[in-house]
């Protein structure tokens, strides 16, 4: 089982360690005693519905948001006591594009390079090629406010990675992007990860988490409901699913083995049913409480 957070990465070579993190806004608890670790070199995802606490958690880990209580350590540096050292190791592309709309793309990138104290020579030889690699050359002299969402996102990611962070946080990186742009960003994440960058992303796209991530944490109402690899999460709810179509409704059951799923399907007699592998969306719906149509006989 992974829903007890037994596979939270503790004890491994962790680059992000979060212990009992709580963030409150007045009476509202956005993040409620969350603990987990992100292992060095992995792609880790926070999966959760809108308002689950994903963005607040990321903003707190990256020192933008103040925690009410708890501890966060980035690459060995506590963000409360060694804030600057922790920040040197962090890159973040926020959900809302956090570039200065009144400056050009080139000015935004240059400003970020200056803020991260990247020498001018290195800016020319290393940073500008990153922007070129993301296809930004034709847009460098245009104001950010004049760009489409996809190009703004690429400019923001350039700014987030130009100082070669150890861990890159991507908050809903593909929200609002077309399919082509999404796949370009997925390739970028894979390339960065292959180059040794740990990636921590939040998403509510199941296919994105399934395609990119080594491990996934499902967060709901500010708490982690489950954490593990996609296979482990699938295993936790039942790796095989039987879908039974009854009129306009589809009822699903989870099963521990393919034989069990087939036997169950055959036992239903002459009804329209489909036996398939459980996917991350199934896991997510089960764990986050969106399983109103899931049969309670499901095997766990």
């Amino acid at each position, binding site marked *: 089982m992974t829903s007890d957070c037994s596979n939270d990465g503790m004890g491994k070579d962790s680059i992000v360690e979060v212990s009992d993190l709580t963030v409150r806004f007045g009476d509202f608890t956005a993040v409620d005693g969350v603990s987990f670790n992100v292992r060095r070199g992995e792609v880790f995802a926070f999966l959760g519905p809108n308002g689950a606490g994903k963005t607040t958690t990321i903003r707190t880990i990256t020192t933008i948001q103040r925690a009410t209580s708890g501890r966060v350590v980035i690459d060995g540096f506590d963000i409360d006591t060694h804030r600057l050292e922790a920040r040197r190791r962090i890159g973040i592309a926020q959900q809302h594009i*956090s*570039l200065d709309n009144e400056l050009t793309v080139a000015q935004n990138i240059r400003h970020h390079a200056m803020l991260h104290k990247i020498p001018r020579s290195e800016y020319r030889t290393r940073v500008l090629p990153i922007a070129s690699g993301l296809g930004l050359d034709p847009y460098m002299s245009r104001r950010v406010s004049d760009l489409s969402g996809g190009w703004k996102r690429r400019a923001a990611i350039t700014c987030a990675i130009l100082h070669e962070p150890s861990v890159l946080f991507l908050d809903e990186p593909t929200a609002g992007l077309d399919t082509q742009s999404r796949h370009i960003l997925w390739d970028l994440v894979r390339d960065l990860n292959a180059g040794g960058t740990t990636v921590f992303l939040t998403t509510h796209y199941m296919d994105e988490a399934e395609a990119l991530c080594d491990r996934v944490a499902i967060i709901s109402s500010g708490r982690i409901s489950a954490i593990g690899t996609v296979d482990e999460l699938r295993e936790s709810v039942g790796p095989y699913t039987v879908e039974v179509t009854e009129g306009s409704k589809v009822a699903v059951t989870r099963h521990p083995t393919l034989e069990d799923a087939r036997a169950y399907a055959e036992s239903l007699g002459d009804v329209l049913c489909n036996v398939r592998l459980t996917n991350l969306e199934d896991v997510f719906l089960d764990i986050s409480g969106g399983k109103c149509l899931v049969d309670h006989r499901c095997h766990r």
Partner: protein
Amino acid sequence: MWITDVIDESYRVAWGDLCHLKSNLLEVLLTGTVGPLLYLLAFGYGIGGSMGGGEEYVAFILPGILALATLSATFSTVSMRTLIQRLFYMSFDELLLCPIHVSAVVVGKTLAGMARVVISCSIILLVGCLIVPDASVNVQTVLILLLSAFMFSLLGFLAGIAVRRTNTLSLISAVVIVPMTFLCGTLFDVSALPSWAASVINVLPLTHVSELVRSAMGSGTVPSDSLAVVFVYTALFFGLCWYLIRTNRC
């Protein structure tokens, strides 16, 4: 060295705002100088002239208008740009994410405001010296204007990081900034006010900036009590900005 790091980082923080200022230079020239020049002409020649002391009155209000320019060229632009970067562009978050000292963020965000003051005051002084040939500008005057620009930029930055809505900024402007503009010894001698009003006005920073600039341009002296008040306000605004950023309360 901490201080050299902060100076270097302050410029890095300011770079974006200075780029913005450079690409909007005409707007900066107009917004920073038209108002003070209008005051100079309307109050100096208009009201002063109608009372029979035009040139003397212009000579009296020129230091006040310079003091006023350090407020008008900084507060609204620094506060509004900070607020927009914080609430709408979210680009202020990027400063909070960078490995730079909090002091550098505070100082850096005031530098563009100070640059605006240098531009505005240069033009006002140029016009003022044409109107009042006897006007003298010395090192003390320049340093006081820079100190005042720093103080009011800090006030603008403080407002920009503390408020949650643009309406609140308008309220601050209407309730604090506009009254200061007219009452703080820029256009008339504060001693002409009733004692209760003068005691209130004497608490406000612009009163002391007016006093400092007027003394520096007149006798070349720098009243230590007014200078102390300006330093106290500067330290207070700086401390509040530093605290709000350091504790992620902005």
